[in-house]
């Protein structure tokens, strides 16, 4: 229905009022009078007349009550994670979120502030970012971290671009155990940069040479397994290449951080740190590196300094790297990032702290290994990958995983990721100089499912999953 039809269709004669617009018709008239203008429409006369005031086919306005009901209705047609067991991960994880995260991050003073360009009026946000930089660098065992990127995938892609700037090389070796989604985002970011992307197998040792800018690995890898970061870092450095790691921050509660092995750039998806799955976003990308590379970093940095009375304060710093100063020569085009979710992650890490993060990581590990051991005992199911895994693992199933998943969903269990579908749904990249689409690693699995078990899954839920899977045993 177009706007102009509304009055005719309305049973009420009162004009609709908009709660977000304070100006009443009388106030508008008074303000227009000060301008010597008869109507609001007259203010738009710079728009060529034939294009002005086009028909606008949008719904009629709604009251908050009606909007609430409409959204409740849409939400009710989604299967919420809280409604039953879930074993889906693959880059987005179902973890417990303490109540204080939402309570604090939705304070209007945080929620409705802009990017802290006016430092004196933004000390809260700037100090939070500084805290975030501290905790993320500790988590990854790295020297410095930035204020955050959009998400884990884009953070990794920016890490790859940075490695090419640092090394002045343009060939990128990507481990074939990297998430196919991340692999694709790297392809998109690199397609216009003359960067060549090669798929390499991380074990026993990746094929690198003196032209390689960086080796890109995920830790734990897409299948949930711990890569040999010591060996891979050595292999990259032996060729003068950097190693860029995408690491699950939750696994850092249990496993040695990439910084321990000498990684050069460590990125990650911040979602596990107190951020709801929310159908894919908003999240926050984590990004850390060595001190020597800070002037090549993308995105914002908060720095500690003093005011003119000697008091400690915080400012956005090293801004000459950024687009609003450097324009086409900036390290990245990133401007708005995900500050609110950097805040969420900071509150989460403060709440969990040293003990809590270790506890969550160990719970995930214990429950995942319990589940894997039980599933491996089912006839027809095997674990095709040898090695140490954290909270995710690959199961080879007796029948295609999508048929298992359909049956599980009937029992209100959200199953794992069907790896065949995950790889087949990846569209080819357009116009890039890249080495085509990601492919499943050698020795590819048939009927493989990627399962994830976290602290959210009770033993009862895991047993129910095993029971349901046993229906397909043969």
């Amino acid at each position: 229905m177009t706007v102009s039809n509304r009055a005719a269709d309305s049973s009420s004669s009162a004009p609709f009022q908009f709660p977000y617009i304070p100006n009443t018709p009388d106030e508008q008239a008074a303000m227009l009078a000060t301008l010597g203008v008869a109507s609001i429409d007259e203010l738009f006369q710079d728009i060529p007349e034939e294009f002005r005031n086009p028909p606008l086919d949008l719904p009629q306005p709604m009251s908050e009550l009606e909007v609430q009901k409409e959204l409740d209705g849409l939400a009710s047609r989604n299967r919420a994670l809280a409604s039953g067991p879930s074993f889906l991960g693959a880059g987005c994880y179902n973890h417990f979120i303490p109540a204080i995260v939402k309570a604090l991050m939705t304070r209007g003073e945080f929620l409705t502030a802009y990017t802290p360009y006016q430092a004196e009026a933004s000390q809260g946000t700037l100090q939070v970012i500084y805290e975030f930089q501290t905790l993320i660098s500790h988590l990854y065992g790295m020297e410095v971290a930035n204020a955050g990127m959009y998400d884990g995938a884009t953070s990794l892609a920016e890490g790859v671009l940075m490695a090419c700037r640092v090394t002045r090389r343009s060939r990128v070796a990507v481990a074939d155990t990297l998430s196919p989604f991340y692999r694709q985002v790297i392809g998109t970011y690199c397609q216009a940069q003359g960067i060549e992307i090669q798929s390499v197998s991380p074990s026993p040792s990746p094929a690198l040479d003196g032209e390689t800018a960086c080796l890109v690995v995920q830790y734990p890898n897409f299948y949930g397994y711990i890569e040999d970061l010591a060996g891979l870092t050595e292999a990259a450095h032996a060729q003068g290449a950097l190693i860029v790691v995408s690491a699950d921050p939750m696994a850092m509660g249990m496993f040695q951080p990439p910084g321990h092995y000498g990684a050069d750039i460590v990125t990650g998806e911040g979602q596990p740190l107190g951020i709801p799955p929310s159908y894919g976003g908003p999240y926050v990308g984590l990004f850390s590196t060595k001190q020597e590379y800070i002037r090549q970093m993308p995105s914002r940095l908060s720095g500690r300094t003093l005011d003119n009375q000697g008091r400690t304060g915080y400012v956005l710093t090293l801004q000459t790297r950024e687009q609003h100063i450097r324009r086409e020569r900036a390290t990245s085009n990133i401007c708005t990032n995900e500050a609110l979710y950097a805040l969420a992650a900071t509150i989460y890490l403060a709440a969990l702290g040293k003990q809590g993060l270790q506890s969550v990581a160990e719970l995930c590990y214990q429950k995942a290994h319990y589940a894997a051991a039980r599933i491996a005992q089912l006839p027809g199911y095997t674990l095709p990958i040898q090695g140490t895994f954290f909270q995710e693992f690959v199961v080879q199933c007796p029948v295609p995983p999508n048929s298992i998943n359909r049956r599980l969903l009937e029992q209100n269990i959200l199953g794992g990721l069907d790896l065949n579908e995950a790889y087949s749904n990846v569209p080819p990249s357009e116009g890039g100089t890249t080495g085509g689409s990601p492919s499943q690693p050698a020795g590819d699995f048939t009927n493989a499912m990627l399962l994830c078990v976290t602290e959210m899954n009770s033993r009862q839920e895991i047993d129910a999953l095993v029971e349901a899977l046993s229906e397909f045993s043969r």
Partner: protein
Amino acid sequence: MTGGGNRDTTKLLMERSVPGRVGAVLPQPDVPAQPLPDPSLLRTALDLPEVSEPEIVQYFTALSQRNFSIDTHFYPLGSCTMKYNPKINDEVSFLPGLAGIHPLQPPESAQGALELLYRLQGFLAEITGLPGVGLSTLAGAHGELAGMLMMRAYHLARGDTNRRQVLIPDSAHGTNPASAAMAGFDVVTVASDDQGNVDLKALHELVGPNLAGVMITLPSTLGLFDTGIVEVCQTVHQAGGLVYGDGANMNALLGRVKLGPLGFDVVHLNLHKTFSTPHGGGGPGAGPVCVTDSLIPHLPAPVVTQSSGDGAPVYGLAAPERTIGKLSGFHGNFGVLVRAFTYILTLGGEGLRAISGNAVLNANYLMDALKDTYYLPYDRRCMHEAVFSADWQKARGASGLEIVKRLLDYGFHAPTLYFPLIVHEALMIEPTESETRETLDAFIQALRDIDREVTENPELVRGAPHTTPVSRLDEATAARQPDLRWRAAG
């Protein structure tokens, strides 16, 4: 003013840490103990703070009180559209059926989310007059990157491999040239004329066979509607180029004009500006891209599709046939998209027109009231924001920087300063539609008072701010000797 003791913000988290304190307790394991991995793989030291829950709440609450925000202060930051962020939008985004859904769960278990996204695609197509919409880009600059990669893909798909040049007006946001560079283009700056429009003569001289396109912000960052825009688009199209529209200033145009019919080929919208989703101290945003028919095959993946079987419509995710690829891990900043969808539902078409009308009215009211006190370099009808210069005050001894810092003392956030670059001592003021006339009048009075202070008490202005938690900070040392994280003493 914040409290003392633990409610003071001086100490950082690591400095508050006391061994043995916990802020959250997890359940005990309910499965039999599993064998641990090789000890060499296990973490030996985890340097995270140990603080209790009340301390965390006190500390972060105290920190929040050291911010200006829309809810606490008028925030007339030009080009950022700091309008009221409706609370209902946040509330619905936290519904378990929206915040608690996994991006990879089967589409049949997420039909409500997909329907929401599909309808939002339709709303944005209607608002811009551009039929193809991709929602997966995560901020304005991310939308710009998508748009410029689509421009590149469009030319390459036609075998047009030499179109490497992108024209960008000198008034543009810095993200425009940075995004064009990331998409592999060479950036050429095009001048503005004395009315603040794109200089058509300069444009005609610059277009040629190497032209990939232009990036135009409408209204411009001067807050002006470019009256030559139709000729700009025609000139670029005749040369074989495409027109990119930076939709940062769309708040001025809602329901007043559609960019597609004007000649734009691809436009990004900033949902965190025009469509009221909160900035969160610097994100999250969402930067959907809207395109003409000929660019639809190149949209970033995924887009939301609708198919009508026998019964109700079925929604799904798909990759366009010649997509530039994925630009984010999943499908976009869904929580932000939910808020923008809710905003559009609340306002409807009629409300969106009222938004642009009142935003432009408020900006003109401010401009008219202040133009005798502050120099107005382009004295013509403005759209959603007005760009002044502090040149008159500078001549009397106070810079634009000092004036906006003094505004903080009056309880108003600063306007955008020293941007656009083509205006000397620029002060860019965007009031938005959600402020009352009383607030606008108080702000006008404050700027007039400060102007008087520049003459009568210049030291007061030059030393500002005086009332904020900290005064002017030493940015030079911060950049020379970067201190980017806490370190243990000694």
